[in-house]
């Protein structure tokens, strides 16, 4: 199982590779200059994208290349924090400066027991650090979890294995955070066997 992590410059990107490696996936950081073709050549079974200092509310163009990968890659994708917001923008939704930015521990409530949230409790404490947030859901996406101050904590495409998570499951303080990666690996496995065309 090969799941590389796009390094978008955030503090925790390298920790994501650690979390995936500990779950027996092959993972390493790859640069933002990566293309969908590179991913195919490295036989990636799934793609995780980390957080970063970019303000998607007004400078999404700084991640133009990653936007291209999001559009073109034909494998399961998981965007965390800034790349969750970027996904929303790429698929026609919106991200803006958060009225109430969240830093540190925040309670997240599950709205929809989707496969990416398998085995999670109805609510759990998650670690956050974001200045912007997704304010309009893209078409064909559904909200899976929210917090008191942020409506879209987890989202997915209705039919395709494309997921966005605002909090940081790679932070060890996030309750059962590693489950997100475990579930994502399962989703990639399933995808590998069925090879549904995205």
């Amino acid at each position: 199982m090969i799941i590389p992590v796009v390094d978008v410059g955030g503090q925790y990107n390298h920790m994501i590779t650690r979390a995936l490696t500990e779950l027996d996936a092959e993972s390493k950081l790859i640069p933002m200059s990566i293309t969908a073709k590179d991913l195919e050549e490295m036989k990636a079974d799934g793609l995780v994208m980390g957080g970063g200092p970019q303000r998607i509310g007004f400078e999404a163009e700084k991640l133009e290349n990653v936007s291209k990968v999001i559009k073109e890659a034909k494998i399961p994708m998981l965007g965390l924090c800034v790349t969750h917001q970027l996904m929303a923008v790429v698929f026609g939704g919106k991200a803006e400066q958060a009225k109430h930015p969240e830093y540190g521990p925040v309670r997240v409530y599950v709205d929809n027991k989707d496969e990416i949230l398998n085995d999670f409790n109805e609510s759990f404490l998650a670690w956050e650090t974001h200045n912007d947030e997704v304010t309009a859901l893209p078409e064909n996406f559904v909200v899976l979890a929210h917090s008191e101050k942020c409506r879209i904590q987890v989202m997915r495409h209705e039919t395709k294995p494309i997921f966005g998570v605002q909090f940081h499951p790679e932070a060890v303080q996030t309750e059962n955070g590693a489950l997100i990666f475990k579930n994502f690996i399962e989703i990639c496995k399933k995808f590998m066997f069925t090879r549904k065309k995205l």
Partner: protein
Amino acid sequence: MVLNVQGFVDEKIEEIRRIVNDEKALIAVSGGVDSTTCAVLTHKAIYENLQCVFIDTGFMRLGEPEKVKSFFEELDLPFKIIDARERFMELLKGLEDAEEKRKVFRQTFYDVLSESAKEEDCKFLVQGTIAPDWIETKGGIKTQHNVLEQIGINPVEKFGFQVIEPIAYLYKDQVREVANFLGIKTDTSQRQPFPGPGLLVRVIGEVTKEKLDIEKKATEIVERNIEGSQYFAAIIDNEEIENENNIEKLTTDFFNVNQVEVKVPKNLVTGVKGDLRAYKKLAALTIRLNSGLFKPTIEKLVQLQVNIISENPDFTRVAYNITEKPRKGKYIILVRSINTRDYMTAKVTEIPWENLEKTAEEIMKKCKEISEVYYDVTPKPPSTVEYE
């Protein structure tokens, strides 16, 4: 798969041997687990071609240089101390900005090492850099003293040695596993981390001899009374600035109390918000009831802190007064304790009030010029573990 320690150690020994060949290497050690692990690892690779040096910057804890010396004698590694205390103090005089202090520290640290490497005829410098060091420096959160190549500084050109970093991709808990495997004593392998620039980054703002001496005493008291993954004292000038904010109102509403006092010190402290460096203000909170200090749970204080930082973009930390009887004094002591596995994110330790009060009392009794003692209730993020 978790880290294969045996495989890692074998691979690194071979790699160091191949790179250093018949040349000599220098390693700067602090007595902490990262550099000690690297020293033992490198010694297994190149034996007597390794020279360990301990730079006494003056920012070490009470008795530390002596302790490190006897520890390395026990490990039976070639060891020497370089006294650079006056040189550091002289160069740091008058500097208030956290990053300026860290950069001058780094430059001086490598100047001293570079001279030592020339003297010892060493072409290589081994460093105990670990993952959070280069991640934070590269991300512009703060300048760690041991990161060069990752931010484009060429050490061969600038200092005359090539840098080797055997554990650069490990986190603290993984380094501890390697240390245990190498048979390094558990009091070192499990020891709490201590920053490279030492107490310099816990003396907030300008460093003076008076502040540093008080900080050393307070550190000894906190280390004896408080627990956590990392726990220490910091000192900040008791100099307030005027500031418009809604912290008093947020606090009053949150706890339904009315004797709330918010102090905003002049000096700024380091934090991280949404992966951006946030060098911002500290809110020092006091709530008194008629019967004395109001003592909510630490968990509640952390929740209040989340609201305060979310609504006040100029702030990055909140600390809570734990002093029963404040007095006049030039400085404030901040007590900090966090719990974490990898030091990339961290929780505030829920220290029982009894311990907090006892600690504050002892600090007030033994340290001069202290007006109050506060407990820091900010997790990482939005704060960093250290203050600068």
